[in-house]
């Protein structure tokens, strides 16, 4: 017997998914998360899942240890070492005032203060040539100050370090000889130009490195003690995974380790069903995350912001808005507002009976009959409809609205905000949401999926298997993946002859990482891409590069240029076909498949799609558009054939509303496909 295990640690629960490779079955284990000592929850889940640890052949883990350390500002004391004359780059930022009418604007809080920034003498030019060599004495002096200052980690960011890594390597070596803390070099974490953004990324990586290191060491040794024989893999923000060893060097790449699992899962679920374009929505108690899968690939972005601080690192593009089951419904003058404030887990929605008096989206769903009161959230909690109605009535009174009217209008507002979040990722890029399937998961995803689909005129919704633990399910579908990037500022018209060399050197780099991951002997696929733009523009478009283009760019430059014009036209509605185009960066991703392609458990899971109609367990009132309809209630695992809406499908950690005019049917892989007739 061989097993594969994926673990996702959430705010409330730690989810484990166990795949029995030969037996072709999958099961979930849910234990309470153990904040403070997350490893305990992981070990408890591993013990509870029933698989002997020595039989586990793949152990994948999504961790929010880094992200939480950042969000709660519990990271390491970081010293920043930079080029003389540029001490304040990190504190100055870019000088912008996003809250433009605020006379009292305060910048995002940096991760270190001015006393933690040290200058060394050295200087590179923009082309990487040396203007002034590294002054070893100045580095030694700085090392002394860092040692005396009790810092726990060091970030080294030298001007133009992306163009020539020699100075950072030398300064890093000199510091490591004298210091016993992690030293993080900017060109390894983010070899891209723009000194503030690169500094911010490197500092953030150094900030979470010691915490990640300690966490991973504890986890690995605890799992060893249980008998686990294989390395622990960690999901990366880019949707791939890497070994814990490599994660230690590039901690910043694990920031979105948690949320990406669902996107990777949606991609895999879509692949099995031959659905290549999906909009994924992950809705829980406080937030609503949107991502795209296009042409069978998760949509990646090369930079993003966290708490206002920029990060140059590839990440699955997740657009988050503050709309979840706990979003508060409030009257403000004669306006009705929903969120972004949330009731959280405490006091929670009014219907939880834990002291919450303000109504939430969950209360609205309950009062409208979209969430059956027999349903027990998170498997255990009873819901109080009267408390929900009373809370809605208090908000409705000044507006002259009945509780049910408030509930319907609040959902309308929430659905609009969610639809806007989806439009930002689609319509705004020239993509039509109607060409996509909406894939809904998370505790509250299924509740809103068909209504949201109608708002966007989407006619197909996929509620995947195990929607409440879908992130962990997704982690089992990932590959080992590394992304590298190099600033490559060249004119496309000159068809730079050093392109093959640049791509080759990036391939060597990623191959080295895969070997250290213990995945060097797996089948490896490389994907090269370039960021291109019109000369003079700032924003770039990323285009994949074919092997033939890399090998002989001169012969294919015209075709590449045409592809750029076309992509530009698709995005912006116009293109300047006579304007020159330039390269800005070259990217290489290396992907090593861990699966052997034979995964019977994925195809066979769930009940077979039969013709029989399941019997509803009950019926209930369902309100929509001021009308009261009757909805049938089903248990999900009992559904074997088509179910007509309005219907409510219940399972342990998720409820799915099949809206009027929609039909749900089980499909291969244990997923539920909803279609508008």
């Amino acid at each position, binding site marked *: 017997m061989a097993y594969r295990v994926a673990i996702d640690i959430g705010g409330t629960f730690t989810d484990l998914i166990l795949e029995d490779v030969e037996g072709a079955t999958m099961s979930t284990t849910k234990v309470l998360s153990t904040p403070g000592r997350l490893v305990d929850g992981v070990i408890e889940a591993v013990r509870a899942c029933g698989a002997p640890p020595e039989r586990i052949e793949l152990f994948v883990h999504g961790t929010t240890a880094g992200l939480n350390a950042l969000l709660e500002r519990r990271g390491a004391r970081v010293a920043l070492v930079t080029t003389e*004359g*540029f*001490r*304040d*780059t990190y*504190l*100055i930022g*870019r*000088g*912008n*005032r*996003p*809250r*433009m*009418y*605020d*006379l*009292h*604007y*305060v*910048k995002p809080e940096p991760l270190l*203060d*001015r*006393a933690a920034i040290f200058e060394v003498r050295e200087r590179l*030019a*923009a082309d990487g040539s040396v203007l002034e060599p590294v002054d070893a004495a100045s580095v030694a002096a700085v090392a002394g100050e860092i040692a005396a200052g009790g810092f726990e980690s060091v970030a080294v960011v030298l*001007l*133009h370090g*992306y163009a020539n890594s020699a100075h950072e390597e030398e300064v890093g070596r000199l510091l490591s000889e004298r210091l016993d803390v992690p030293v993080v070099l900017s060109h390894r974490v983010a070899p891209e*130009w*723009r*000194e*503030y*953004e690169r500094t911010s990324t490197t500092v953030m990586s150094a900030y979470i490195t010691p915490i990640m290191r300690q966490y991973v060491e504890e986890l690995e040794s605890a799992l060893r003690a249980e008998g686990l024989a294989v390395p622990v893999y960690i999901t990366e923000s880019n949707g791939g995974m890497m070994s814990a060893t490599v994660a230690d060097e590039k901690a910043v790449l694990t920031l979105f380790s948690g949320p990406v699992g669902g996107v990777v899962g949606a991609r895999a679920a879509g692949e099995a069903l031959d659905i290549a374009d999906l909009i994924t929505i992950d809705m829980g108690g406080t937030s609503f995350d949107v991502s795209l899968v296009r042409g069978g690939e998760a949509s990646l972005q090369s930079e993003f912001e966290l708490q206002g601080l920029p990060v140059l690192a590839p990440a699955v593009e997740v657009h988050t808005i503050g709309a979840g089951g706990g979003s508060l419904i409030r009257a403000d*003058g*004669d*306006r*009705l*507002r929903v969120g972004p404030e949330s009731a959280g887990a405490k006091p929670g929605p009014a219907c939880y009976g834990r002291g919450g008096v303000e109504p939430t989206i969950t209360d609205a769903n309950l009062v409208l009959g979209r969430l059956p009161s027999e349903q027990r959230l998170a498997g255990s909690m009873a819901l109080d409809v009267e408390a929900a109605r009373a809370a809605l009535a208090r908000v409705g009174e000044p507006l002259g*609205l009945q509780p049910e009217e408030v509930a319907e*209008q*609040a959902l*309308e*507002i929430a659905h*609009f905000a969610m639809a*806007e979040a989806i*439009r*930002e990722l689609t*319509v*705004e890029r020239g993509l039509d949401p109607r060409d996509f399937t909406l894939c809904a998961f998370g505790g509250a995803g299924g509740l809103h999926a068909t209504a949201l689909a109608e708002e966007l005129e989407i006619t197909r919704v996929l509620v995947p298997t195990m929607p409440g633990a879908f992130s962990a399910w997704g982690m089992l579908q990932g590959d080992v993946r590394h992304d590298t990037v190099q600033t490559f500022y060249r004119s496309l018209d000159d068809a730079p002859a050093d392109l093959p060399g640049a791509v080759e050197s990036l391939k060597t780099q990623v191959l080295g990482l895969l070997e250290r991951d213990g995945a060097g002997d797996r089948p490896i696929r490389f994907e090269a891409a370039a960021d291109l733009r*019109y000369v*003079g*523009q*700032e*924003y770039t478009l990323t285009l994949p590069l074919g092997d033939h283009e890399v090998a002989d760019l001169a012969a294919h430059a015209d075709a590449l240029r045409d592809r750029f014009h076309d992509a*530009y036209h698709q995005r*912006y*509605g*116009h293109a300047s076909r006579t*304007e020159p185009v330039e390269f800005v960066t070259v990217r290489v991703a290396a992907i090593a498949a861990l699966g052997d392609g034979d995964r019977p458990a994925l195809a066979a899971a769930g009940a077979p799609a039969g013709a029989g109609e399941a019997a509803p367990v009950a019926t209930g009132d369902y309100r929509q558009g001021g009308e009261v309809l009757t909805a049938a209630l089903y248990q999900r695992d009992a559904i074997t054939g088509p179910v007509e809406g309005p219907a409510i499908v219940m399972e342990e950690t998720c409820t799915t509303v099949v809206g009027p005019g929609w039909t749900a049917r089980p499909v291969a892989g244990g997923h539920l496909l909803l279609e508008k007739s």
Partner: protein
Amino acid sequence: MHTPVTPSPATVEIVRHAFMSGAEQMRRNLCRSAYSPVIYEMKDCSVGLYDARGDLLGQAPGLPFFLGSLAGTIKLVLERVGAGAFEEGDVWLVNDSAICGSHLNDVTVFAPIFVDGTLRGFSGAKAHWNDVGAKDAGYVSDSTDIFQEGLRIPPMRIIRAGELDEQLLDLITLNSRFPGALAGDLMAQVTACRTGAERFHSIVDRYGWDQVEASIERFFAQAEAADRASVAEIPDGVYRAEGALDGDGISDRPVPVVVTVTVEGDEMTIDLEGSSPECRGSINSGIVQTRSAIQQAFKFLVNPDDPVCGGNFRNLEIKVPKGSCFDPSPTAACLHYGPHLMLAIDLVVRALSDAVPERAAAGHVGDSWNITFVNERGREPFLAGESIIGGWGAHEHGDGESALVHSAAGDFKNYPVEIMEQRYPLRLRRHGLRTGSGGDGRHRGGLGIVREYETLEPCLLSLWFERHDTPAWGLHGGKDGAPPEVWVTRPGEERRLVLKCNAMPVPAGTVVEVHSGGGGGWGDPAERSPQNRAEDERLGLID
């Protein structure tokens, strides 16, 4: 008979947000496809959706200075040409200072939006073009009439019924030293307008025009009520403040600016009477931009976090003396249309700083502080211009923030050193905080910066650094911030202080040290806590 429509609160809320997010989508498309850093990094632009009267429906963050300028321009054009002049598929443009209020580089592009054959609104995108054929390349600082400042374009169709007017485009590009970027920026604006029109239509398709129109009136009324409630909290009275600019770029005679703010119940009047007459140099602004800047001053003090729409500013009366630098003759030089307006904004805040201290702040970066290096005839022609960031004023709630862009700009981003050195023959020797530049006080003013450039090739240098003689003021006993200084050292010459110059030839190896100003302090310095002083010391923020 027209039946009145009462939209539900949800519809009103959704329509309001839909116009804002439509504008945001316009802004992103503009910034991502524009060619000039002045648009995509400095956000020297403004985009919005407007109703058929020219009232704002939704705006995206651009230059806060342009808060009301597109609305003002559309209204003025409507007055000039009449609503009947617009046809479906048109895109118009205009840059004349007498209509747009700002300098000729700021070009307004706008498109009428028709619903079932009836004009229902406009989408507009205003953006800064680097060169519209002024007498010198770069940022001219010594013009004395508008003819020296570039090509004046009255309201014209650049696209008629969907067809681009190639002849007009030729005329415009022929008048620019950097025609490629200009055409790209124009097309980016056109795209933004079309995006806006599509979103406008999708909103109307979803709810029907009657619901949309009723929703607009509803959220306009809500915004007006919020403004009135906020002004009503300000004690009634007449508040006055005055200040002066160092000079108009031609003479060193100070340029006086006087504001009188009258608060009566829930209404506010801001009067610029007593300010300088039209300047010979280019410190003049058209009435549209003057009104826009005064609306911004109001916004700093009244509901600063709320989005803006056509319902705002209905309780604000703006009085502008004809013939002053705030409403000059149609041929007045307007290239530096900002300094006196930014001073007026600061003076409005200052005037009310005793009445509503919790909403006010001490003086801050009071000018755009421009530095431009240009060489249009070298091996590789280039134009590198930036606006230098500085310290903001302290306030009742804390110290002023350091190193932020001036009040007229918002989500502007400064030039990374690594990109600057890659693109231009310049080397940055230093980029850091200017320690000791924040005005002392119970709360300390924010710090300015020091930025040192070295030229690697000969070029022309233009500088505009205002507010040196009257730097960012302290309030309630706080001290003034340090004034801006620029030190120029040409090889073999003495280091000298230059605050304004136009196209000064500088050889390779010239060093330009810019020390931007700090923000003013708030409250008596004796009341600054020992902990805060020790922290300033530890971080090396004071000298």
